């Protein structure tokens, strides 16, 4: 009952929160002294990057690990990993786009040879590589195993991205929202808007993931229906 309700509400709540983020970000919060209206990107870019790195890539990695661990091995995990990785590609691309849009006016270029930027792009290639690897393998169990191992190996990149700003001390913003000891650096309505944006984009991820998962399920159903007929046809080949 509760589960059903939350399932039903996921879409509408996501939409409302996204709209709220948009409204607060565009009209209610003040412009910045240095950055002017550009600062409003802070309600989009960090939240999207958070989803790309931790929520979606993380989901894919955890699901892959659960697949590899014998006691939790199931095709459900494989499917979750696959769907999460697809959504992750979308969010990584969005991170790159919003970052570039932000970088153009602040740094004067679309792209800088900054460690975080480069490692984010590499993560994107890894996510695409994951999908390519899936395409290249036909046997379902082998595909599941290989892609799970690849996802876990790729996840090493995530902490590298996170710490890159500390290790390399380059252009990209360091920890602006939270300091290392988790005290909030910005206050009032701005902080609230930021928080809402994180929640909204996280919910958006789960909404997309669920939609993608359902699509995969219905494809699987269609596949097993097709299997019945192709088994039948194959058997009839012999009857002639």
């Amino acid at each position: 009952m509760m589960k059903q309700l939350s399932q039903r509400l996921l879409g509408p709540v996501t939409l409302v929160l996204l709209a709220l983020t948009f409204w607060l970000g565009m009209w209610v919060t003040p412009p910045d002294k240095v950055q002017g209206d550009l600062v409003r990107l802070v309600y989009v870019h960090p939240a999207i990057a958070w989803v790309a790195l931790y929520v979606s890539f993380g989901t894919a990695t955890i699901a892959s690990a659960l697949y590899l661990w014998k006691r939790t091995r199931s095709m459900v995990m494989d499917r979750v990993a696959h769907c999460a990785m697809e959504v992750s590609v979308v969010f990584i691309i969005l991170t790159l786009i919003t970052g570039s849009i932000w970088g153009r006016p602040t740094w004067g270029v679309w792209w800088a040879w900054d460690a975080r930027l480069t490692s984010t792009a590499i993560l994107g290639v890894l996510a695409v590589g994951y999908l390519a690897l899936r395409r290249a393998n036909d046997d379902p169990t082998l595909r599941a195993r290989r892609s799970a191992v690849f996802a876990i190996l790729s996840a090493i990149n995530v902490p590298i991205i996170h710490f890159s700003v500390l290790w390399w001390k380059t252009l990209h913003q360091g920890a602006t929202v939270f300091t290392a000891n988790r005290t909030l650096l910005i206050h009032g309505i701005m902080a609230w808007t930021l928080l809402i944006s994180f929640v909204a984009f996280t919910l958006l991820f789960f909404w997309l993931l669920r939609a993608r998962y359902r699509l995969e399920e219905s494809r699987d159903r269609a596949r097993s229906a097709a299997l019945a007929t192709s088994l039948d046809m194959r058997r009839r080949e012999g009857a002639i």
Partner: protein
Amino acid sequence: MTGDAVVRLDGAVVLSSGFPLLSGVDLELASGSLSVVTGANGAGKTSLLRLLAGLVALSAGRGSVVGVDLLEGDLRQLRRRVGWLGHEGSFYDDLSVRENLAFAARALGRPTSAIEDVVERVGLTHRIDTTTKQLSAGQRRRLGLSWLLLRRPELWLLDEPYASLDDEGRTFFDGLLGDVVAGGATVVLSAHDPLRSTALHPRTLCIAGGRIVSDVT
């Protein structure tokens, strides 16, 4: 000859990109038996042998081969105990006959001294230092046989072993079959002709449309 089953398949289905290569095979093979799989082109003979060798995965149904479960067992254990001779019985193309056999012998912990003997038996002595790539079709097939002779597996899976062997090679092969079965190993081979040797009384499984449609002992 013991009577316990070496192969046991129960509704075995094998899929390849959605197409059922095998569409539900029920089969039980006794240890020490000789079976011939026949059937029209594309019926699924090769697919059945590949399944038994652990080279393709079972998509539905259940099965076990030499005691290893096809769904949950360790397929590597299975593969180590079967011998396979395929349509393209090739090994490392850049190594010579001797080097290929030495590799197999060392990998299995067998003495390499048996190599010359085995090569002699399949009649490749005069090509022992020739690169595998340069062998003729029949010579490759003979190399495949010598590889099996070296390994002496429990279950022999031979896909059209007679193809491209010459007359003398076939006679040798018939003799070999008799020895192997007498030695207690199980043999499954696919063929388009009935066996030449009249001394052997194989079980004949006829496949059509990915299923066994007749089974004559």
